[in-house]
């Protein structure tokens, strides 16, 4: 596995100048997205309500998580996910592709070049973070399995092992955690498979050893600790659709114009700030992804 940066950086090192420059380069690459990271992570921006995107401190990003397999409170995953066994890890690939099979994690990551991507993460619950991910485009992974023309959607599944995940016994949700993307969404260059964040290995509570990151969709689409990838013809029924189809749609694109049943989506609270800020269409990535949904009624396909 080729990693461009050392994996043992401490979190405040992430904002050193060289990296800052690198980030800016990537931002230019993204066509002027409004990401501007400054200074070291802190709560200095408590009262700032402007649109700058300071990187969320690692301590927050790794202690305020939704990973229901380990409990429904935000602090549960950090407490209970440490028992997750991530070595050895394998991913089963099946469905409409030429190279179905079960792959070791090392085989999957071997040919990939790890890069850093700083993305906003907007949770459907109305809060957001800015996270420097380490990973590679999902497309690079999927192409290797040679999906056929029948592959219209990709279905992802999280590990579901009651021995390691306390909540699976309680049937809190209709496990396993299932998510999906349309093929063109999956192949989009912004769609990432993350194996690390802040220059470190992915913490277990953040979905180690590999997770999806789809920055223009609500966070629940970015499925964690993936064990299965399937190429399918029909849109897979996701776990949250099973729970409440009227609240959580398949597309789940960040959209301030379509409110959730129990709260408005117009605003969000960036962690570390007291006041809310405006939520941007497609979480600020409209320029890159809006064309994927041309002609679709986003109120119906929420």
């Amino acid at each position, binding site marked *: 596995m080729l990693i461009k940066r050392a994996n043992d950086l401490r979190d405040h090192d992430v904002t050193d100048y060289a990296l800052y420059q690198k980030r800016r380069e990537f931002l230019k690459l993204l066509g002027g997205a409004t990401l501007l990271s400054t200074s070291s992570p802190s*709560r200095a921006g408590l009262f700032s309500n402007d649109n700058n995107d300071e990187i*969320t401190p690692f*301590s*927050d*990003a790794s*202690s*305020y998580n939704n990973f*229901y397999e380990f409990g*429904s409170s*935000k*602090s549960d995953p950090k407490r209970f996910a440490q028992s997750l066994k991530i070595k050895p890890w394998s991913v089963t690939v099946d469905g409409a592709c030429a190279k179905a099979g079960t792959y070791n994690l090392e085989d999957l990551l071997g040919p990939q070049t790890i890069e850093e991507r700083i993305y906003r993460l907007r949770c459907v619950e109305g*809060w957001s973070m800015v996270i420097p991910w380490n990973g590679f485009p999902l497309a690079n992974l999927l192409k290797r399995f040679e999906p056929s023309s029948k592959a219209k959607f990709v279905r992802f599944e999280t590990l579901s092992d009651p021995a390691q995940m306390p909540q699976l016994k309680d049937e*809190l*949700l209709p496990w396993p955690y299932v998510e999906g993307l349309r093929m063109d969404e999956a192949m989009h260059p912004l769609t990432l498979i993350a194996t690390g964040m802040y220059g470190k290995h992915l913490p277990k509570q953040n979905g180690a050893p590999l997770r999806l990151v789809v920055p223009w969709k609500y966070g629940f689409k970015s499925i964690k600790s993936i064990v299965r990838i399937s190429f399918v013809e029909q849109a897979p029924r996701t776990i949250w659709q099973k*729970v*409440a189809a009227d*609240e959580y749609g398949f597309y789940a694109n960040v959209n301030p114009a379509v*409110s959730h*049943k*129990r*709260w*408005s989506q*117009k605003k969000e*609270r960036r*962690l*570390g700030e*007291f*006041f*809310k800020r405006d939520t941007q269409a497609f979480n600020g990535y409209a320029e890159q992804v809006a064309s994927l949904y041309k002609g679709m009624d986003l109120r119906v396909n929420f």
Partner: protein
Amino acid sequence: MLISDESFSRFIKPLVFAVSLLPVLALIMGLIHDNLGANPVESLIRNTGDWALRFLLITLAISPLRRRLAWVQALKLRRMFGLFSFFYASLHVLLYTVLDQALDWEEVVQDILERPFILMGFLAFLFMLPLAITSTRAMMRRLGAKWKKLHQLIYLIIILALLHFWWMKDAKADISEPLWYAALATLLLGERVFNVWQSRATRV
């Protein structure tokens, strides 16, 4: 009773008052020391909501305690607990309007109208207002028998507050917390139903 009424009023009451302030002090300290977690505002709003509900239940527990355990002095604390419930509810609502909605009243109204769980909280708070206003001794005297009737609104308030909590959790799967509170409320309201039934039975 082990303690005279006078020392109860002089020592126990102020002590209970001070203890009832601990949750808000803990929140202020947490804010200063930045240990309310990654989302301190959410933590503040949830904690004040929790304490409003808890004090409401404590208030409702006073009469049953008096009746079942013959703890008459508890009655002296009831108003204070009721007002603490109102105090925490006011903080809760203030934090919501200032920090969540940035005093955008149009948004607040829309939130109340569009979201049943917010509507329930709003109604609960609305009905708390007349109770807080009429909590003084002078008001009690002035209203006479009507006072008691008015303050039965607390039964409605607890139901609204529980619906508020329950519907907030709805579809996010884990409703065990509101269920525990609801169980306790059922017990406290059930005691009253039982009490009425019992006194009727003895009258016959």
